Each structure stands twice: as C-alpha cells, then as structure tokens.
C-alpha cells in the first residue's frame, strides 16, 4: 500500500528537543528498507502559486490555497504493508515531534 505523507508544521511542537530523532537517520533507514519511495522538503509557502481555470480563464493567486498557521513543508511517499507499518515509520520522523504528519493512502 502506498501512503502520501504530508509533513506539516504545528503550533504546539514537542518542547523536549533532546528526544527528537535525526532526519538523516530516518531517511537512511527507510530508504534502505524500501519503505520510503521518494520525498523532499518544500520551498516556503510564500513561493506557492495557486492555479484555477474558471470560464476558460487561467486564474493565478499568490500563496497556498489555504491560509493557515500550519503549513505543508514537505512530503514523503511511503510503501508499507499496512497502516500500522506506516504509522510506525511516521512516528519515527522528527516532524512527528516538531510538527504533524498526515498519512493518506492512494492506489498505485
């Protein structure tokens, strides 16, 4: 099963920094096990462009489509046996502590 993992910020991150795992270790481990198919950080939301087509006209607006305090700052594509495995991979990611992760399955 493939899961798109959205990496988001959170207004109330973990305060004990000493327990936050290391991102390089996480990437290395999950690349090696084949659970991480792809992934990266995103450039800041201020660089986002939102695109719509209405009445045949391409409408652009500056910034992300939802103006919220929590923003998507990265993504990973996970290939896991089931949701429990995906949760275990997500819970070991530093942004599970400093932010929040959303796991969305997709058929692929």
């Amino acid at each position, binding site marked *: 099963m493939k899961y798109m993992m959205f990496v988001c910020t959170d207004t109330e991150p973990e305060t004990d920094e000493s327990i936050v795992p290391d991102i390089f270790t996480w990437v290395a481990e999950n690349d090696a096990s084949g659970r991480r198919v792809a992934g990266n950080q995103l450039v800041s939301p201020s660089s986002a462009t939102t695109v719509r087509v209405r009445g045949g006209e391409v409408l652009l607006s500056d910034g992300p489509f939802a103006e919220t305090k929590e923003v998507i700052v990265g993504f990973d594509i996970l290939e896991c*046996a*089931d*949701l*429990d495995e995906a*949760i275990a991979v997500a819970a070991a990611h530093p942004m599970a502590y400093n932010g929040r992760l959303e*796991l969305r*399955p997709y058929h692929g």
Partner: protein
Amino acid sequence: MTDLPDSYGRIVATLIRLTGDWNLAEDCAQEAMAAALERWPRDGTPDNPGGWLMTVARNRAVDVLRRSSVEQAKLREVAMLFHPGEQHEIEDDRLRLIFTCCHPALALEARVALTLRTVGGVPTADIARVFLVSESAMTRRITRAKSKITEARIPYRVPSGVALTERLPGVLAVLYLLFTRGYDADGEPAFADEAIRLARLLTGLMPAEPEVAALLALFLLQHSRRHARRDAVGDLVPLDRQDRSRWDHESIAEGRALLERTPVTGPYAIQAHIAAGHGAAGSDWRSIAGWYDQLARIQPTPMVELNRAVAHGYAFGPQSGLALLAGFEGYPAVAIEADLTAKAGDRDRAADLFREAAAVAPSEVERRALLARAAEL
C-alpha cells in the same frame, strides 16, 4: 439454545478474515441468524448450533462470491473454512475483529459504534439512540469507519509484543466507554450488559492480561448496584444511601473472586478494588482510601483527587478529607466540602455550603438532592 450474539460476532470475525469484505461478512451473518429464527422452531435446534450458523453463513458467502467471478481466490478460502484444527484460528478471529474495530486511527465514538455493530451484532438504530444521532447518521459513521479500515489498510490482526501493550488500553477504553454509556443516567442499560459480555469474551481470549480481568471485575461490581442506583422517580441514589440488600450479590461475589486472582498492574484493577471496598455490611473506607492513594499516583486527575478526599474524610475523619480539598473550587468540590463539614458537626456552615453547591450543580436532579441535604440540617 446457543448464544446468538456470540455466534454473530464469531461468524463476522471469521468471514472478514477469509473474504476481507466487512459488508459481505455482516450480511451473511445476519442471513444465517434469520435462517435460524425461521427453521429452528420448525425443525428443532441442531446439535451444534454455532457450527450450523457458521455453515449457513459460509455457504451464503460462497454463493455471493461465486456470482462475482473475479473473487475466485477468496472463494477458495471460504470453501476451505472447516479444515481440522481451525477452531483455534476462529477464536483468534474475534480478537482480530475487536482490535481492528478499536484501532486508534478511527475516531473514539466510531470505535465504540463499530465494536457494538460488528462484534456485538447490536442494531444500528439502538446504537444511534444512545449516541443521540439519527439512524442514518449512525449508518454513515459506521460505513465511513469500515471504508477507512479497507482504504487505509488498517490490518486485521492482533498486535504483538510492545504494540500489544500500547494498543490494549485503547481496546479497554472502548469497552469502558461502552459500559458507562449503559450505566450513565440517560444511557441504554443493555449496553452495560453488552460491555460485560465483551469483557468476558476478552478475558477468555487474553487470560494473560490482568487488566482485562480487572476491567471485567470492575464492571461486575459496578453493575451489581444497578437495582439500587435509582429511587422511585428515577433519580440517582448516592452509594451511601443505597439499599444494599438490593445489590446483586452474585455479581459482587464473581467480581471479588476474579479480583482475588488478578494481580494489580493498572488503573482498572485499582478501581475494581475501590468498588469492592463497598460491601453489603458497609464500606471499608481505610482500604478504599489506600487504593485512591495508589490511583492518584498513576492518574492524578481532579476527579480522582476529589474522590480521594472523600475516602480520606470517611476513613480518617472529616478534617483529613477537607485538607485534601484545598485548592479545589466549584462543583463537585463544594458539595464534598459540604458533606464533610456536616460530618464534622458544623451544621450551619454545612447548610450554607450545600446551598452554594446546589446553585452551581450541573443538573436538576443533583440540585434537588443538595437542597434536600441543606434542609435536613
């Protein structure tokens, strides 16, 4: 006569494992139940009612799958259902079903509803009534939970090792919520019976987990007061004013016996010991106070601290209890302060406090009870 709800959960659990299709499993289980109700009165109850029901449900599943030709692989598995040595696997299926219904990736209320529906076979309309939503809203909620299990691939399995330790409290919390839904003032009493039935099932399936047995003991002890908890007009009667001869002493004996052979490893065992402290002959407040001290160490919530103050007030004199109330304000702290002040003999101050508590009581029933206490003084 076999235990029909028990058979229902058994069939659903096994057919989900074999077909992976929750709706098919439930439909076939229901049809087997309907067939039993129609045929057993006419033809007599079969020698092995559970096996009869499982066979009818399996045949129905095979029929449905045979018509949808893409399901050949599943069909083969269902057809192989009754291989020797499968009984153990079928027992495990119910545990798989409970753990899947109680998966933490589902919303808490959805977990309770799904457990009631699929493990307990409780009609959706009954579940909806207790959750104060329409039947169609409850149907949507349960459907959505089942879709998420399939689409997000929530595994159909009992976790092992560390994961089991992490997940078991969540399963017990669902049973506890189910029990309180049956036990609360406006609840559905049948849900308390259902919670006890599921706790019994889980105790049988997980004999090595003391907190499971402890939860069953807690249910049995609390449920033993069900006939004494309400007065003639349906108002709640506090424990110290209940007619203890109306308690279910068989249920108490079972709960206590269970507790005696269960080591204390978590909050449910402690709560069960607290419940066991109230006996037919009176309450052992010193023992209860000691258990509250333990509970406060692992669950230092305001409710636990307040109950601890009550227990200390009754065990070691009102002043001990009042000392533990320091720092608490509002309801129910002021009602407890009023009670302990009355016990200490300061009638005027106690009456004032009862009136003060009545003014902030969250329900009309409690307000009336507090004003009655003020009037008694």
